[in-house]
């Protein structure tokens, strides 16, 4: 294949930036354009629900690169302009202001949009948390209000609850699952996390659906649950997951199925690639299509996309990694932690507040989780890479 003379990256968050940086690292000298819907230069999202929300960091600290480093990339940055249409055959993107950008290769890196509750009113006090502006607005409300309800029992909801609790707010967390992060970590470890939140004073309402937000027409006043309970609230954080930001692609002809469907090279069509939260690609190691919503994937996939753009023909088949910080606990997961997997704690113990656990599925180790046990977790990752036989787990100890 010939190397494209120009590349347009649509989405200026971590995945988009990673593609641009990796292209230059590969020695790519063609024209690069980075188009972002937000007005901010590329920034990091994981700190939003933690350091930025708590006020430990000024918002500007989330910037991924300073101006000098961005200038070195010799890329044209267009910020505050949303892509609204992709012409696949013409390799062109139209923006909301009517600008038409063309390039020989286009990378879709538009990420996610937060889900909202059905009929969610635009009342004051109701927040989603995806962007830097969202985090700043939520922080302002958390400073002013004392009663907080978090709707959502996933990573973001749990982190927002922990941060709000750390600010001294009265926090109730509501979610439909049996325990916190049940689908991400399984019921056992999710149960430990729920206990941690309860010890910290968070009220949990799990296994129950939200019926509606209650408000006075201007401000939210509470959250009504399906079992009839009314939780009073001055601030409501809606963290019920996200969906891939692909509305602008519905008339593009690209295959969309909970994300932009790509081959094992992260290619959606000739000259069109996708990266990060928005991409559903074929993982050759697993033999299945996969979409990951995490920071590490965006960067690693960005490097894979860049390699494929310059003709290296490299399948993308990572061992996923994600982490979450809640209170004084750092949880890290390498690989997969399916909810129905077997779990074996091989280092430390939950009572000691430090442990590492292996996850087994299909007779093999598929994941490792560390709870305040960083170095051992990193060592145990090798068992995920090698797919160690589950029958050997009893004799395992981190080296």
């Amino acid at each position, binding site marked *: 294949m010939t190397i494209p003379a120009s590349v347009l990256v649509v989405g200026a968050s971590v995945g988009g930036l*990673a593609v641009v*940086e*990796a292209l230059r*690292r590969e020695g790519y000298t063609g024209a690069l354009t980075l188009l972002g819907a937000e007005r901010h230069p590329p920034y*990091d999202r*994981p700190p939003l629900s933690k350091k930025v929300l708590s006020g430990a960091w000024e918002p500007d600290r989330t910037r*991924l690169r300073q101006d000098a480093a961005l200038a070195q990339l010799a890329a044209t940055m267009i910020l505050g302009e949303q892509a609204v249409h992709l012409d696949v055959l013409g390799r062109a993107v139209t923006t909301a202001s009517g600008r038409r950008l063309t390039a020989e290769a286009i990378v879709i890196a538009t990420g996610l949009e937060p889900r909202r509750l059905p009929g969610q009113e635009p009342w004051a006090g109701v927040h989603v948390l995806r962007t830097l502006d969202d985090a700043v607005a939520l922080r302002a409300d958390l400073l002013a209000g004392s009663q907080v309800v978090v709707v959502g029992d996933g990573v973001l909801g749990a982190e927002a609850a922990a941060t709000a609790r750390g600010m001294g707010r009265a926090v109730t967390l509501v979610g439909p699952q049996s325990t916190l992060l049940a689908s991400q970590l399984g019921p056992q470890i999710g149960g430990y996390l729920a206990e941690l939140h309860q010890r910290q004073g968070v009220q949990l309402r799990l296994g129950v659906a939200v019926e509606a937000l209650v408000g006075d027409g201007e401000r939210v006043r509470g959250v009504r649950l399906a079992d009839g309970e009314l939780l009073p609230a001055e601030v409501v954080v809606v963290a019920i997951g996200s969906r891939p930001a692909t509305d602008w692609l519905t008339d593009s002809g690209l295959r969309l199925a909970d994300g932009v469907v790509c081959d094992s090279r992260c290619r959606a069509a000739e000259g069109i690639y996708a990266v990060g939260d928005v991409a559903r690609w074929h993982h050759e190691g697993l033999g299945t299509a996969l979409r990951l919503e995490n*920071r*590490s994937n965006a*960067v*690693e996939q960005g*490097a894979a996309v860049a390699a494929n753009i310059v003709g290296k023909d490299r399948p993308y088949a990572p061992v996923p*990694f994600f*982490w979450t*910080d809640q209170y004084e606990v*750092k949880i*890290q997961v390498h690989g997969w932690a399916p909810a129905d997997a077997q779990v074996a704690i091989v280092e430390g113990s939950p009572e000691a507040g430090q442990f590492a656990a292996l996850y087994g599925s299909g007779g093999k180790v598929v994941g490792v989780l560390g709870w*305040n046990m*960083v*170095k051992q*977790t*990193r060592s145990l*990752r090798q068992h995920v890479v090698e797919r160690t036989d589950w029958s050997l787990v009893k004799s395992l100890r981190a080296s």
Partner: protein
Amino acid sequence: MRVIVDLEKCCGAGQCVLLAPKVFDQRDDGIVILLDEHPPEALHKAVREAACVCPGAAIKLEEQA
């Protein structure tokens, strides 16, 4: 090349240690330990990749230094 690490941004993923174990290590709490502030040229490619994939954006490089 000069390597600069921001301990406050470090999230303890250990990706840098996996990529360049002669340049990076981790404390018991996972925070990065910089073993070699001026790594030899043979390691530059690995260090650049480590800086790029760092999930906390905690590794900065001064290429001229």
